C-alpha cells in the first residue's frame, strides 16, 4: 500500500469543515467492533446511529452518499460502508480495521453456532425451530426486495428488467454473472444518458 497516495487522498477530506479530529485506528476498530456485536436485524441503522449521531465522524449527507455507492457495488452494504468510512477516516488501514471490526463478532458467533449445529442439528427440537426460522428469512428478504423496489425502480421497464433477471436465474438456470452482464447491459443501455446530458457533461 503506498503511503503517499493515502495521504494525498486524505488531504481534501481533512480540510472540509465537518472533518473530525484525527481518529485513531484503534478507535475505528473498536467502534466497528461494537456495531458488529450489537447490530441485530441489519447493520445500516446502527451504522448511522454510531458514525453520524454518536461519533460525528461523517455527516448525514456523506452517509447517504456512501450508502448509495455501497448499494451500487457488489458486496454487502455493511462491509462496503466499513471500507468507505474507514478510508475516509484513516485511509487503507482505517478500512481494514473497520471491516475486521464489523465482521469479527458475527463470524465468531456463527463459528460457534456451526459447531453446535453439527452436533445437535438433527434433534427434533432444533429442526422444528429451524423450519420456522427459514420461513421467516424468506419473509425478511421479500421485505428487503419490496423496500428496494419502491425506492429504486422507476417505470414499468425496470420491472421488466427485474422479471427478466428472475426468469434467467430461476427458470432458464443461467449463471448469475451471465445474467448480470446480459440483462445489466440491456438495462444500462435503456437508461443511457440523453444527448442533452452528454452535452452538458462536456461543457
Amino acid at each position, binding site marked *: 500500500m503506498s503511503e503517499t497516495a493515502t495521504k494525498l487522498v486524505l488531504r481534501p477530506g481533512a480540510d472540509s469543515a465537518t472533518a473530525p479530529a484525527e481518529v485513531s485506528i484503534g478507535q475505528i476498530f473498536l467502534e466497528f467492533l461494537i456495531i458488529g456485536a450489537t447490530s441485530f436485524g441489519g447493520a445500516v441503522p446502527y451504522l448511522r446511529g454510531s458514525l453520524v449521531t454518536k461519533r460525528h465522524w461523517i455527516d448525514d449527507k456523506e452517509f447517504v452518499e456512501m450508502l448509495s455507492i455501497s448499494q451500487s457495488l457488489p458486496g454487502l452494504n455493511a462491509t462496503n460502508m466499513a471500507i468507505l468510512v474507514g478510508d475516509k477516516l484513516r485511509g487503507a488501514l482505517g478500512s481494514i480495521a473497520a471491516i475486521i471490526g*464489523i465482521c469479527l463478532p458475527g463470524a465468531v*458467533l456463527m463459528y460457534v453456532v456451526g459447531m453446535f449445529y453439527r452436533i445437535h442439528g438433527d434433534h427434533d427440537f432444533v429442526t422444528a425451530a429451524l423450519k*420456522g426460522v*427459514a*420461513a*421467516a*428469512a424468506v419473509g425478511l428478504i421479500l421485505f428487503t426486495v419490496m423496500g428496494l423496489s419502491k425506492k429504486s425502480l422507476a417505470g414499468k421497464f425496470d420491472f421488466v428488467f427485474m422479471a427478466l*433477471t428472475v426468469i*434467467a436465474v430461476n427458470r432458464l438456470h443461467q449463471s448469475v*454473472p451471465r445474467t448480470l452482464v446480459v440483462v445489466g447491459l440491456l438495462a444500462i443501455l435503456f437508461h443511457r444518458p440523453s444527448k442533452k446530458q452528454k452535452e452538458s457533461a462536456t461543457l
Partner: protein
Amino acid sequence: MNQIPALVRVFAYLSILTVGGGMAAFPEMKILTVEVHKWLTFPQLIHLYSVGQMAPGPNMMMIAVIGQWAGGMLGAVAVLIAFFGPTALLAFVVARLWKKLEKWPWRTSIQQGLAPVSIGLLLAGCFTMAKGAIFGVETAAIAVGVLLILQRYKVNPALLVVGSAVLGVFSFMPK
C-alpha cells in the same frame, strides 16, 4: 483432502456476485457448495443462512460455518477473506474514483440500470431459498406474516426470526 483452495476459489467468485445483497449470490452458492462440492446439504444451507439473520453484523457470516465444516478453523478464515476481500478492494478503489466520475453521464445510467437487475437477483435468491423453506401452510403463513408485520410496524427483524423459531417448534415438533 485439502479443501482450502476450492473454498477460496468458490467464495471469491461468490463475492463478486453479491450485487444488491448477499442473497444475490444464493442460487450460485447452492449449486457450488451443495451440488458441486457437497460441503453441506441444501436444508443445512437454508438453516445456516436463516440462523445467520439472528446474528449481529453483516448478514452473510454463515459462510464461516461452511468453511469450518469443509476445512476447520483455517477453512473458516480462508472463506471469510475470500468472500469479503474482493468486494472490499473494489469498494475501496471505486469509492476513490467516484467523485471524479461525478460528471460522467454514464455513472447515473449504470446506477439506474443495475438497480432492477440487482433487485431481480435478490428475488431470484429468495425464490431459490423458498423452494426449500416453504412447504405447506405453516411455513407460508410465517413468511407472509413476517413480511406484513415488517411493512406495518417498526419491529427489529431479528426478533421476528426468534418468534418464528418458537412458532416452528409449536408447528413441527413431533408429538
